[in-house]
């Protein structure tokens, strides 16, 4: 089965997908949050009838449109990249993974596409209430789109509601509701969309801060900050709650990811949390080195977060790789052996079916069924291959948490000083507000690095490693498209930033 795979191109395919995803994620969170903020602004306009709120709405809407277009452009690449670069994946799990993508198209994209035009060009063509409805529908459509793609992503992290069909050598859906309501899908959706709301709130605060620093559009800026800081703060609280839930589900369904996030090599009872630490780059699984050069540890907290029990055991990388009989954890080496048995049984089954030898086919099938939960492990060369890049996961996780905490503080401060009408005097805070835009993007990207790098080497957790999921392409082909994508996306990003800056510089004049 693996003879067609050119292993040297797998990392280029990974890099290309990561590149597309990270570019896409520059634009999507702003769309998710700004769509709601614009809907809030317009609702206030409709409620009060104050034309200043309309001017404000139209200004933020114009920024929304610039960002939205490039989000669409990078989004289509992502959808089709599953086919172009991960064709084995598309076949082996398309029966399950394709459904949420199609549902996304039917239920979300058409809402966005239809109401986007009404929202932008319908001011004088439809009634005020219809226009407001359209604006809300753009927000709903954007976030529904996030729901379905995150359901798909959640299924990759926790494959549920399916079975393996040996005749076709693919996974097939058996329970749509299990896929839709998988705990990982739910926590992914809530955490990710709420983080998008935070980012958009920071964006509005940052741009408004710049106006205040320049002494322009003071009323518009203060009104925008008040709404955005409130929305951001509420969203931030929800991000913290859903993040805790995400860590809890990781502990139970992706323990290796949690171990990498914490650089936890040897599990214990209780296990402490490391809010800050510097890793020893020479540390490898199985050696006796201390993973940390420097660390600050809070005892017991990781056990509490992972299991809701202060004295519970949290497995480390070594426990998961080399096994821990006391805690009933199977060694990865054993899983690899059983995975190889499953792969061989699958080949035997197909051969026997082809030869018309039904008893042999049934015997092979029984062996396959007994070992199929480890199918993906059979493609790993050695137990250590099951460990994701620890340092990148560890530091990204801390960056996300630290930046998220700073952003929460920013919301509180902006809310307080705007509420007490002293915001214009707090120039340090206004500068921090502008800077926070970059911090929010860093936090957001870091979050996805944790989620995706932390689950390597799996395309589908435990069932399909990326090395088997990719397309039968040469490394040169993928390299070429990688650099083409890089050039195109970078050019478009520069164009977008320039247009946004110019639009902000121009301000709401004319709106």
């Amino acid at each position, binding site marked *: 089965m693996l003879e067609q795979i050119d292993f040297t191109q797998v990392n280029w395919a990974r890099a290309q997908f990561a590149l597309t995803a990270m570019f896409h994620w520059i634009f999507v969170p702003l769309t998710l949050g700004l769509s709601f903020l614009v809907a809030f602004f317009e609702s206030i306009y409709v409620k009060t009838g104050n034309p200043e709120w309309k001017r404000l709405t139209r200004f933020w809407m114009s920024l929304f449109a610039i960002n939205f277009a*490039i989000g669409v452009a990078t989004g289509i690449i992502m959808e089709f990249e599953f086919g172009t670069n991960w064709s084995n994946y598309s*076949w082996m799990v*398309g029966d399950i993974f394709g459904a949420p993508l199609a549902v996304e198209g039917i239920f979300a994209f058409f809402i966005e596409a239809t109401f986007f035009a009404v929202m932008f060009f319908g001011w004088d063509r439809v009634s005020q209430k219809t226009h407001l409805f359209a604006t809300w529908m753009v927000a709903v459509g954007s976030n529904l789109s996030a729901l379905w793609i995150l359901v798909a992503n959640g299924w990759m992290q926790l494959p549920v509601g399916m079975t393996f069909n040996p005749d076709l050598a693919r996974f097939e859906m058996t329970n749509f509701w299990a896929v839709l309501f998988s705990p990982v899908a739910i926590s992914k959706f809530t955490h990710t969309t709420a983080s998008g709301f935070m980012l958009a709130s920071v964006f509005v605060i940052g741009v408004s801060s710049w106006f205040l620093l320049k002494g322009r559009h003071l009323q518009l800026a203060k009104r925008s900050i008040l709404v955005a800081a409130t929305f951001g703060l509420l969203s931030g609280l929800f991000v913290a709650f859903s993040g805790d839930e995400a860590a809890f589900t990781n502990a139970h369904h992706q323990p290796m990811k949690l171990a990498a996030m914490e650089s936890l090599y040897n599990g214990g009872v209780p296990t402490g949390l490391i809010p800050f630490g510097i890793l020893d780059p020479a540390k490898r699984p199985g050696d006796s080195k201390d993973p940390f050069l420097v660390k600050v540890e809070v005892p017991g907290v990781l056990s509490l977060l992972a299991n809701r029990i202060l004295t519970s055991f949290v497995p480390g990388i070594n426990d998961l790789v080399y096994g821990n009989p006391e805690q009933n954890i199977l060694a990865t080496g054993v899983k690899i052996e059983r995975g190889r048995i499953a792969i061989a049984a699958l080949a035997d089954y197909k051969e026997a079916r082809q030869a018309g030898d039904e008893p042999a086919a049934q015997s092979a099938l029984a062996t396959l069924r007994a070992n199929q939960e480890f199918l993906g492990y059979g493609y790993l060369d050695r137990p250590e291959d099951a460990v994701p890049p620890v340092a990148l996961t560890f530091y990204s996780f801390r960056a996300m948490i630290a930046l998220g905490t700073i952003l929460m503080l920013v919301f509180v401060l902006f809310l307080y000083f705007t509420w007490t009408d002293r915001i214009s005097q707090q120039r340090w805070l206004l500068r921090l507000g502008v800077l926070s835009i970059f911090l929010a993007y860093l936090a957001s990207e870091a979050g996805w690095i944790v989620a995706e790098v932390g689950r390597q080497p799996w395309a589908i957790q435990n069932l399909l490693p990326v090395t088997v999921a990719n397309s039968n392409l040469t490394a040169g082909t993928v390299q070429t498209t990688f650099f083409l994508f890089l050039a195109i996306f970078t050019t478009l990003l520069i164009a977008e930033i320039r*247009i946004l800056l110019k639009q902000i510089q121009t301000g709401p004049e004319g709106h």
Partner: protein
Amino acid sequence: MIGQLALSQLQQLWWLIASLVGSLFLMLTFVQGGQTLLFTLPRSDQERLLLVNSIGRKWELTFTTLVLFGGALFAAFPLFYATSFGGAYWVWILILFTFVGQAVSYEYRRKPANLLGTRSFDIFLFLNGSVGLLLIGAAVGTFFTGSSFSLNGYNLVTWQHPLRGLEAAFNPFNVALGLFLVFHARVLGSLYLLNNIEHDGLNQRCRQAVFVNLLLALPFLLFVLFRLVTMPGYAVDPVTGSVSLEAGKYLHNLLAMPAVLGLLLVGLLLVVWAVVAGRFLGSRRGIWFAGPGTVLVGLALFALAGYHDTAFYPSSSDLQSSLTIHNASSSHYTLTVMSYVALAVPFVLAYIAYFWRLMDARSLTLEQLEGEHSHDLY
């Protein structure tokens, strides 16, 4: 209820649904057609503004329909998705590039500090409408002419041509289909602009463009139809599933499925009627005939490719690797779930139609554009 249907019935239903989405995309390529008229139809910047802001308010529907077409094929026929996209790599990548260019161009083309200048973004729009559609036509053409690939026992694809899909653009039938799509889209674009814009000069030129582009499309259409009824096709044995070349297969399909022949003829007649009405009878409503006509022609083409024991994505180098709606489809359960989801499609079409009508109740004029905020215009 839907779950009671046999797998083969669900597979036929989903080929119909995917065909319908694909055909709706073809109808909506009036946007692409309009984009290729950008450099020839308008005589001034104001007229160009009018044209772009007319078709620009519909580009997302076309784009979304294409994405849904991809999503529907992924969900219903994942083996096609894996085989074609992973195999014919370059043709799909180039198509995608042209759509990336389209997605940003409307929003960015007139914005100050847009880095590349208005003309560059207009060229992106032109490339999307010309090269993009040509390649889509070439890719769809392989549904009839076949591609060089093989699948192993695990259904993993090996593409056997070094051009990885671009070779489709060197086959006369595929090229003719692609060029027909390009000129047909220009017919649709002209008809749409004629209906949507109120401007004497532009309207007059649209009427001419409708006719000229039909004449340009006609040789390619005739070639495609001629080849279609004379070329060998990829027949599937309904009992064994084995694939073989059959002389006149698509002609046989047409004769065996008179409804499809009817769709094709009625569709073509509607398009021709729309052109005649637009060019010679002073009508501005031709798009409402040509649009549905295009959908009917599209449905007929997809039906010829997929129904009546035909391999819809044939392999010319390894016949038994060819994809049929039966061996490429999702499971019974997934097709059932997706069928329930598809029940929402009429509702989606209804609200699109309602808001389309609401927005286009008045034709677009220069005076209206001047009344709108210049920041918001494309």
